[in-house]
């Protein structure tokens, strides 16, 4: 318990191929039900209840016994607001156990989960490795793979979710700012990546030409792909396709960013089982091998990072991930689901990885082509956050489904042997490279 993972994070240059490349596999996954918000009443729809549901479904998908699970890793913080007070600051009461604190409502710790799994009849009795210190799924997936590669666990369940309770998301009340917010809040700069990336996006348009309108085909296609993901927010709750016209006439939040550039917070959890390659060969599902993972953490030089910073950082990221996986480059990457938490920065990743030959400044022309899943450039086949709600996990489940060949109407028609995705922003993220082969 609480054992450190030695070779993590992988943030440095020239680390070479990942030392455990092909020796770890994703052998199961599970997604919970999904709601726009927890209603504050339904105790079978809490963040914690959905976490247990996701774990149970991942175990079921993998076909192994809970007794075989010896590792558990979660990101406790679900990134939403707390339950302690509503968005106007009015205190709210907790509930009877196990919902007598934030744990289980808006966060979920390994301690809470272990008790919950026992309560729900799927006890994890043989855990020897537990970790709940990671901050995002981008970090978490790499750390889970590293832990299994280092032998900390043979079958490690990894859980990530996004919570959302009633009320306006992340309001900042009061007349004063403190801490790091003194450098941004007074001028109305929100705590969101939205405005940082709106700034970099405008620099992008100035440097390469084009405008916010050029994102329309990408955002429309993300919704289309999301509508083909049965458990996603839009497939369940808003079953209509948006149009280019919808995009061009959307309501702006922080121009050039509008509502349709922004992912909608949801209440949802996903779980993934990472196993040793030896163990994976005898399991129910086709192993999806982890060939490499890398992370990035870059402090901004000043108030805002610039386009130049983001391009340098993501160039490094792509170079290091291909190297970690033993890949030649974009010619070895079949399924690519870069993050789209805001539509304005996805092209930064697309161009860095040069997927389908897209180089710096090419993204708008690429978006204007055929990027549908059935076409020649099936970009972001998951639909991402924009197509599914702010799950941050749809990119991962899509790659697993594409590589297994079970993506249904989203199944791409090209080779689908490898995939890559990650979270979150160019300044801080983790990415993973997956394959049906142990070696390329």
């Amino acid at each position, binding site marked *: 318990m609480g054992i450190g993972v030695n070779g993590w994070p992988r943030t440095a240059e020239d680390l070479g191929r990942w030392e455990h490349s092909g020796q770890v596999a994703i052998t199961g996954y599970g997604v919970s039900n999904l709601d726009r918000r927890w209603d504050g009443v339904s105790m079978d729809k809490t963040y914690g209840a959905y976490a247990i549901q996701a774990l149970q479904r991942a175990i079921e998908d993998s076909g192994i016994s809970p007794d075989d699970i010896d590792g558990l890793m979660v990101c406790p913080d679900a990134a939403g607001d707390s339950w302690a007070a509503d968005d106007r600051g009015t205190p709210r009461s907790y509930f009877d156990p196990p919902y007598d604190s934030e744990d289980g409502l808006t966060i979920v710790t390994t301690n809470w989960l272990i008790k919950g799994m026992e309560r729900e009849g799927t006890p994890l009795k043989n855990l020897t490795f537990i970790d709940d210190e990671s901050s995002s799924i981008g970090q978490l997936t790499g750390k889970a793979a590293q832990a299994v590669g280092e032998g900390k666990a043979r079958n490690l369940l990894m859980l990530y979710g996004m919570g959302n309770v009633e009320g*306006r*998301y*992340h*309001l*900042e*009340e*009061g*007349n*004063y*700012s*403190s801490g*790091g*917010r*003194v*450098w*941004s*809040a*007074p*001028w*109305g*700069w*929100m*705590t*969101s990546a939205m*405005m940082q990336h*709106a*700034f970099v996006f*405008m*620099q992008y348009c*100035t440097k390469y030409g084009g405008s916010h309108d050029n994102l329309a085909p990408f955002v429309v296609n993300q919704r289309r792909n999301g509508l083909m993901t049965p458990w996603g927010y839009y497939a369940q709750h808003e079953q209509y396709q948006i149009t280019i016209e919808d995009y061009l006439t959307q*309501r*702006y*939040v*922080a*121009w*050039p*960013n509008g509502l349709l550039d922004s992912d909608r917070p949801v209440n949802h959890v996903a779980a993934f089982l990472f196993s040793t390659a030896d163990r994976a060969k005898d399991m129910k599902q086709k192993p999806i091998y982890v060939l490499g993972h890398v992370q990035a953490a870059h*402090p*901004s*030089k*000043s*108030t*805002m990072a*610039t386009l130049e910073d983001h391009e340098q950082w993501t160039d490094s990221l792509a170079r290091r991930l291909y190297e970690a996986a033993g890949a030649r480059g974009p010619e070895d990457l079949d399924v690519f689901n870069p993050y789209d938490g805001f539509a304005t920065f996805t092209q930064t990743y697309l161009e860095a990885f040069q997927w389908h030959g897209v180089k710096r400044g090419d993204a708008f022309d690429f978006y204007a082509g055929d990027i549908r899943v059935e076409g020649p450039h099936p970009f972001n086949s998951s639909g991402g956050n924009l197509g599914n709600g702010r799950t941050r996990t749809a990119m991962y489940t899509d790659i697993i489904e594409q590589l297994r060949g079970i993506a249904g109407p989203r199944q791409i028609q090209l080779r689908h042997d490898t995939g890559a995705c990650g979270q979150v922003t160019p300044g801080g993220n983790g990415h993973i490279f997956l394959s049906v082969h142990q070696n390329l």
Partner: protein
Amino acid sequence: MPKTIPVANELTKPFWDAINEKRLVLQHCDDCGKLQYPIRPKCWQCGSEHLGWREVEGKGHILETMVVHDTRVVRRKGDVPFNVSVVSLDEDPTINFLANLPGTPAHEAPQGAAVEILYEEMEPGTFIHDWRIVS
């Protein structure tokens, strides 16, 4: 515009004290010579903790401008739509600031325009810096 009022701490107090005197002072690294803003415990460039203060001239240029139409910062809700520009400092263009450009209507901030610092009194004796376009 009713900006939120910064609360200084031990590290940032010299900066805000200078702002209250209508002076712009930035951190200066004694080891690598780099200027630094926002204020931090260490130099972002070289990691040194040997940081002093240096007064700079409040002149800059607009890099890009966003326009806030809806905000989570409740105190600013009555101001929408308003400009939020990123302004680079002429003395060191790697240093940038946020600006609302008082006097310039939303969506009318010209990219690349020259700006100068101004000081707005938020409470008696408590100022905050902003930037305005110079003709």
